[in-house]
C-alpha cells in the first residue's frame, strides 16, 4: 500500500532501533554501519535487504521463535537467527545462501502444513505476512499430508478436538485460532507495547494456543487497544471492518481527535470509505501505538444521528426547520446583529471548541474580536486546564507543558497527580508503564486507587490517597519536607530562579503548619508516607510530574499548579529530558484552542488584550479596531444571560449543557438567550436550547492542525468530503461574511499563515514545514526553526523561575450532616468526555451507563447493594444512577463519570470555581447517597424537554 501524502519509510525492520557506537559489517556483500546492539536482521534491512521473518517486527524485542530469519555468518557454526544475533564489527553475513534458503522452505512447509489454504477468501488476503513469506522463500510444495491440525472443523467423522471456533466477542476485531501460527507477536505486543498482559500462550508444544485466560476477549483484561491486531501477521486477529469491507487501497496520515495525546494515525481507505484507522509508526506522540478510542471508535463520523442540514427555529419550544445554508446564515446573522443593535455590541459572544482545529478556533475568536467587536470568547479549557495556563504562565513564563512524551523514557521518578492516564490518556499510560517496568519509581497522588497504583507489573511506590480538595496541602507538605530536610537543589535554584523569592518561599513553606504531620488530619495522607514520597521525588534522579484535571478542577486549581511548578523547581527538575511539569490535556486540541486566543483576555499567543502593541498587530492584519477590554468568561456569559444583558451565543463543537457544572444554571442561562447558534455534529444537549443549528464536519472531513499536550502541532488531513457540505472553518467564514466580514480564505493553510504572521511562537509554522517534518512543537520560529521539544533548557522563558507561595484555603464546598460524602468525577477508557462521539460507537460494550463508585462501608450503612439504583444529591441538585461497590474509593468518597446525558452528573456539581480562572470545581462536591427506585424528577423533566426540543419538521413536499 502506498502513502499518498508522505513518503516516510514504512519498512518493518524487524527489531527496534538501538542507540550506540557505530559498527560496520557486510551483508550479502553490502557494507552497512549500524549502532552497536542492532540485530543482524535490522542491519540487513538498513542495507536494503529484507530477511524473511514471521515472529519479528520492529515494534517488539526479538523473540527468535519462527526460525525463518536464519542466516549464515562467516566463522560461526550453524545458522543463527538474524533477529536475536547482535552485529559485531567485521561480520560477514549471508542471507540468501543455498543452505538457509532450504531451511526456510522447510520451516515454511511446516507452518503451512497446519494452516488453512483459503487465501482467496481470507480477510487478510493481500495483507498477510505468512502469504508474503511463502512467496519470499519460494515455497512450491507442501509434502506433509493433513494429519492432526488446528484448522479443520472435523477430523474425519468426529469433531476436531484441536479446532477452536472464532471469538468475535470484541466489537471491533475477531480472534480466529484456526489461522494462528503462534508467533507470539500479539502476546508480546500486549505486554511490551500496551502493558496490559491480557494475552498469553496456553498449553505447550502442538497444544500452544493464544489465549486471554478468560472465556473470551470481551470478558478478559483486554482493553481493545488494537496493538495485537496491529502485530498479527495473519488473519488471526483481524479488524471486523476489514473482514466486512476488504483490504484498503490508499491511506492518509492524520491526527486522532480524541484526547490530548494527539496520536498520529493512518486512515486507510477504499475510495472515500474508511476501512480502518491504524496507528502510524512515525507519529512522534504515539510511536505506533493507539487506544480503543482512536483505533476503533470512529463510527460516530458516519452515524445516522449526524445532522447534515442547517436548521433554524424562532423559539426553542418550536420544532426544528431544515433550511438552506443561505437562509440559516442570514437568519443567524440577522438575529445576532439585531441583538447587538438592541442590547449593545457586548450582548453576544462565542465559545470556541477544543475539538476543532487551530485554524477553526482562530477564526471563531477572530469572529468575535473582528466582527462582533468585543472579546466575548471563551473555550472549554475554562472548565479543564485554564489553571494550567495561568499557573505555569506565572511561574515558568509559558502556559504549557515543558516536555515531549518521549521524555518519559528518561524519567526515574514519576509523580502522577489527579490524573488517571490508563483511562484518560491511554497511549501515554502505555509509554509510562513501559518505563515503570524498566525500573522507574511511581508516586500516585489521587483519592482513588487508579489502575496505575497497582496493575500487572506496575505498582506505585507511594499512593497518597488524599481527601478530595486537599491537593494544595499535600503538594505544600511535600515541598515542606524537601525544604526542611535540606533536599532542595540549591545550586539549580540559585542559577535559574529568583533567589530572593525562593528565600521568602522557603520561609513560608518551612513553617510547621505545612508539615505532613500538621496536615495529616486534613488530607488523610499518613505523614510518614508523604515524607517518604517527598524524599523519593527529591533524591530519586530525574523527577517528572504528570497531572490532570484532578489538579485543576478545584477552587484552588491554579494554586496547585503553582505548587507543582514549585516542586519541580525546588528539585531542579525542569529543563532537560526525563523531568518537567506535564499537564495531560483532556481534549485533542485544548492546548491549541488556548494558544489561539480563545480566552476573553488574551489574543493568540497568550498576549493580553490590554497591550496596545499586541492589538496593533491584529488591528493591522484584520483592518479593524480591537476592544481593549477583556470579554466575558463562560460562567460570566451565563450569569449575564440570566440577568438579561447577554443575548446571543455562537457555540462551536462544545456541549456546555452537559460538560459544564451546575447544569440547571447553564440551562437557565441558555434559555434566557435569544439566539443560540450551535455548530456541532449532533443535536447535543446544548442544542436543546438553540435557535440555529449549523451542522459540523468531523476530523476526517477537514484539513487543519491540532496541538497536543506536548505543544506538538500535528496535521489533520481531509480523508473524505464533509457530509454536511462544508469544513467547520468554512461555516464560520460563512457566518462572518453574512455579518459583513468579507473574509476569503480558501484553505486552512492561509489561516495558519495569518497565525504565523501575528503570533511569535508560531512564526515558523507553515503547512510546508509540517509536511516536511511531520509535526513541530511550538515555539517554532527563527530561534527554534525545528520547534522546541523541551522548554526552559537554558533558563526559564520568563527569565528567572518564580516561586509563589501556596497557602491552602479549604473550599467552601464542605461536607456536613446533610451531605456527608465527597463526590469526585472522572472518565473511563472506552468513553470520551460527554460521550457524544463514543456513545455512538460500539464502545458502549464496555461502558453503557455511568455508575457511582462507593466504598463497601459507606454502602453498607446506607443499605446499598451492588447495581442498586441510588439517588445522588448535592446542594445544587440530584440525579439517580446505579451503584458499584468497590474499595478503589476511600470511605467518605464517591466517584462517577459524566459520559452519559441520562445521568447528568453535572446536575450535582456546584458553581464553585478556581479563584484565578473560574475553572469549575468538578472534583469536589458534598453529596448524600441513598437508595432510590429510578430516575429523578429532573432527569424525567429533562428527558421530556429534550425529546420535544429535538423534533425536526418533515421536509416540505
Amino acid at each position, binding site marked *: 500500500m502506498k502513502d499518498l501524502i508522505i513518503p516516510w519509510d514504512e519498512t518493518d525492520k524487524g527489531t527496534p532501533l538501538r542507540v550506540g557506537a557505530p559498527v560496520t559489517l557486510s551483508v550479502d556483500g553490502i557494507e552497512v554501519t549500524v549502532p552497536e546492539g542492532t540485530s543482524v536482521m535490522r542491519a540487513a534491512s538498513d542495507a536494503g535487504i529484507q530477511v524473511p521473518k514471521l515472529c519479528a517486527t520492529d515494534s517488539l524485542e526479538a523473540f527468535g521463535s519462527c526460525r525463518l530469519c536464519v542466516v549464515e555468518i562467516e566463522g560461526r557454526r550453524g545458522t543463527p537467527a538474524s533477529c536475536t544475533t547482535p552485529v559485531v564489527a567485521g561480520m560477514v553475513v549471508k542471507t540468501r545462501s543455498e543452505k538457509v534458503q532450504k531451511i526456510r522452505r522447510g520451516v515454511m512447509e511446516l507452518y503451512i502444513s497446519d494452516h488453512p489454504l483459503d487465501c482467496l477468501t481470507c480477510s487478510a488476503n493481500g495483507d498477510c505476512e505468512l502469504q508474503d513469506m511463502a512467496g519470499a522463500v519460494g515455497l512450491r510444495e507442501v509434502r506433509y499430508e493433513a494429519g492432526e491440525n488446528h484448522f479443520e472443523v472435523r477430523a474425519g467423522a468426529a469433531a476436531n478436538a484441536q479446532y477452536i471456533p472464532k471469538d468475535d466477542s470484541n466489537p471491533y476485531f475477531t480472534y480466529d485460532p484456526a489461522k494462528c501460527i503462534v508467533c507470539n507477536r500479539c502476546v508480546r505486543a500486549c505486554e511490551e507495547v500496551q502493558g*496490559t*498482559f*491480557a*494475552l*498469553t*500462550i*496456553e*498449553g*505447550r508444544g502442538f497444544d500452544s494456543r493464544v*489465549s*486471554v*485466560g*478468560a472465556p473470551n476477549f470481551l470478558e*478478559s*483484561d483486554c482493553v481493545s487497544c488494537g496493538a495485537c491486531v496491529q502485530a498479527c501477521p495473519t488473519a488471526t486477529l483481524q479488524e471486523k471492518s476489514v473482514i466486512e469491507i476488504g483490504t484498503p487501497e490508499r491511506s492518509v496520515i492524520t491526527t486522532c481527535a480524541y484526547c490530548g495525546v494527539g496520536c498520529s494515525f493512518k486512515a486507510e481507505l477504499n475510495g472515500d470509505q474508511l476501512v480502518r484507522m491504524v496507528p502510524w509508526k512515525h507519529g512522534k506522540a504515539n510511536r505506533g501505538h493507539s487506544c480503543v478510542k482512536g483505533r476503533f471508535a470512529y463510527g460516530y463520523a458516519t452515524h445516522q444521528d449526524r445532522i447534515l442540514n442547517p436548521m433554524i427555529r424562532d423559539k426553542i419550544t418550536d420544532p426544528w426547520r431544515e433550511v438552506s445554508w443561505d437562509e440559516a446564515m442570514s437568519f443567524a446573522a440577522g438575529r445576532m446583529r439585531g441583538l447587538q443593535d438592541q442590547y449593545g455590541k457586548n450582548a453576544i459572544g462565542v465559545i470556541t471548541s477544543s475539538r476543532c482545529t487551530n485554524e477553526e478556533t482562530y477564526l471563531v475568536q477572530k469572529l468575535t474580536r473582528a466582527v462582533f467587536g468585543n472579546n466575548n470568547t471563551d473555550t472549554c479549557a475554562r472548565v479543564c486546564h485554564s489553571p494550567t495556563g495561568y499557573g505555569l504562565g506565572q511561574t515558568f513564563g509559558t502556559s504549557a507543558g515543558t516536555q515531549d512524551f518521549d521524555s518519559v523514557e528518561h524519567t526515574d521518578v514519576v509523580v502522577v497527580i489527579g490524573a488517571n492516564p490508563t483511562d484518560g490518556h491511554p497511549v501515554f499510560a502505555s509509554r509510562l508503564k513501559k518505563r515503570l517496568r524498566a525500573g522507574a519509581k511511581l508516586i500516585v497522588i489521587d483519592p482513588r486507587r487508579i489502575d496505575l497504583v*497497582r*496493575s*500487572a*507489573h*506496575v*505498582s506505585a511506590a507511594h499512593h497518597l490517597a488524599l481527601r478530595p480538595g486537599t491537593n494544595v496541602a499535600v503538594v505544600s507538605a511535600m515541598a515542606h519536607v524537601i525544604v526542611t530536610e535540606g533536599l532542595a537543589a540549591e545550586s539549580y535554584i540559585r542559577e535559574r530562579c529568583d533567589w530572593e523569592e525562593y528565600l521568602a518561599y522557603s520561609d513560608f513553606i518551612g513553617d510547621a503548619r505545612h508539615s505532613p504531620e500538621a496536615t495529616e488530619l486534613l488530607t488523610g495522607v499518613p505523614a510518614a508516607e508523604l515524607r517518604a514520597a517527598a524524599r523519593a521525588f527529591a533524591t530519586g534522579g530525574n523527577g517528572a510530574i504528570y497531572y490532570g484535571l484532578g489538579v485543576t478542577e478545584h477552587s484552588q486549581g491554579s494554586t496547585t499548579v503553582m505548587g507543582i511548578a514549585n516542586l519541580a523547581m525546588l528539585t531542579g527538575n525542569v529543563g532537560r529530558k526525563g523531568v518537567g511539569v506535564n499537564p495531560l490535556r483532556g481534549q485533542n486540541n485544548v492546548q491549541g484552542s488556548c494558544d489561539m486566543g480563545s480566552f476573553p483576555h488574551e489574543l493568540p499567543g497568550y498576549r493580553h488584550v490590554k497591550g496596545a502593541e499586541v492589538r496593533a498587530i491584529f488591528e493591522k492584519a484584520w483592518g479593524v479596531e480591537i476592544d481593549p477590554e477583556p470579554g466575558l468568561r463562560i460562567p460570566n456569559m451565563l450569569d449575564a444571560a440570566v440577568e438579561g444583558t447577554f443575548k446571543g451565543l455562537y457555540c462551536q463543537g462544545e456541549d456546555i449543557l452537559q460538560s459544564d457544572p451546575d447544569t440547571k444554571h447553564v440551562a437557565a442561562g441558555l434559555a434566557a438567550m435569544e439566539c443560540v447558534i450551535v455548530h456541532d455534529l449532533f443535536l447535543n444537549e446544548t442544542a436543546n436550547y438553540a435557535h440555529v443549528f449549523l451542522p459540523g464536519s468531523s476530523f476526517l472531513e477537514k484539513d487543519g492542525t491540532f496541538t497536543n499536550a506536548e505543544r506538538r502541532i500535528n496535521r489533520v488531513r481531509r480523508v473524505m468530503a464533509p457530509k454536511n457540505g462544508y469544513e467547520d472553518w468554512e461555516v464560520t467564514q460563512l457566518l462572518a461574511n453574512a455579518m459583513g466580514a468579507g473574509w476569503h480564505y480558501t484553505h486552512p493553510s492561509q489561516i495558519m499563515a495569518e497565525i504565523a504572521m501575528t503570533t511569535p511562537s508560531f512564526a515558523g509554522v507553515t503547512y510546508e514545514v509540517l509536511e516536511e517534518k511531520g509535526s513541530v512543537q511550538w515555539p517554532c520560529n527563527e530561534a527554534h526553526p525545528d520547534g522546541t521539544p523541551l522548554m526552559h533548557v537554558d533558563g526559564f522563558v520568563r527569565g528567572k523561575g518564580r516561586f509563589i507561595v501556596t497557602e491552602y484555603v479549604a473550599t467552601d464546598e464542605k461536607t456536613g450532616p446533610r451531605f456527608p460524602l465527597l463526590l469526585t468525577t472522572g472518565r473511563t477508557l472506552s468513553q470520551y468526555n460527554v460521550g457524544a462521539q463514543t456513545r455512538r460507537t460500539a464502545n458502549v460494550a464496555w461502558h453503557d451507563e455511568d455508575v457511582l463508585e462507593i466504598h463497601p462501608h459507606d454502602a453498607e450503612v446506607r443499605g446499598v447493594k451492588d447495581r442498586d439504583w441510588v439517588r445522588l444529591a448535592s446542594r445544587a441538585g440530584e440525579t439517580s444512577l446505579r451503584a458499584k461497590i468497590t474499595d478503589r474509593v476511600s470511605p467518605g468518597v464517591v466517584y462517577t463519570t459524566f459520559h452519559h446525558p441520562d445521568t447528568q452528573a453535572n446536575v450535582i456539581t456546584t458553581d464553585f470555581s478556581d479563584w484565578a480562572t473560574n475553572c469549575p470545581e468538578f472534583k469536589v462536591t458534598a453529596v448524600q447517597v441513598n437508595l432510590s427506585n429510578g430516575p429523578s424528577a429532573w432527569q424525567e423533566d429533562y428527558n421530556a424537554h429534550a425529546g420535544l426540543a429535538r423534533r425536526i419538521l418533515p421536509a416540505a413536499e
Partner: protein
Amino acid sequence: MHPQPSDQEIRPVIEAHLHLEGPLLPILHDLQARFGFIPDAARGVIAEALNLSVAEVVGVISFYHDFRKAPAGQHVLKLCRAEACQSVGSEGLAQRVLANLGLEWHGTTADGKLTVEPVYCLGLCACAPALMLDGVVHGRVDDAGVVAILEEAGV
C-alpha cells in the same frame, strides 16, 4: 468443574510463599499438594497477590502438564512413551495396561484409585520400558511386572 476450595483456604497457601523470589511455581506446587489440583478460583488470587495478569498465570499453569485441573486418583501411574521405551515395545505394553484397566490416557479408575498418564522420558532409557508409580520409578517392566507393582501398591 470440580468443587473448588474457598478463598479462605486458597489465600494462606499463596501468602506462605510471597517472601520468595519468583514465588509462582512454589505456590502452584503447594496448591496442588494441598488440594490435589490447581483450583480455577486461585488464578485471580495468585494474579492479584503477585501483581501479574490472570492470563500470565493461566499461561504458566497450562504450560506444565503436571499441574492438574481436577484431582487425580489416589495413585498415579506414568508410563513412559519416549523413544528408548518405544523401541522395546512400551506402546504395546501401555495399550494392554490401559485395556486391562478399561482406561484411556489420563483416565482414572471408577473407584478413584488409579490415574494413568503418559510421560516422555524418565531418564531410565538403559532400563526401558520404564514407568513411575507415585514418584517411584521402575525399569525393565513387562505385563506381569506392571500387575505386580500395582498389586503391591494395593490398586
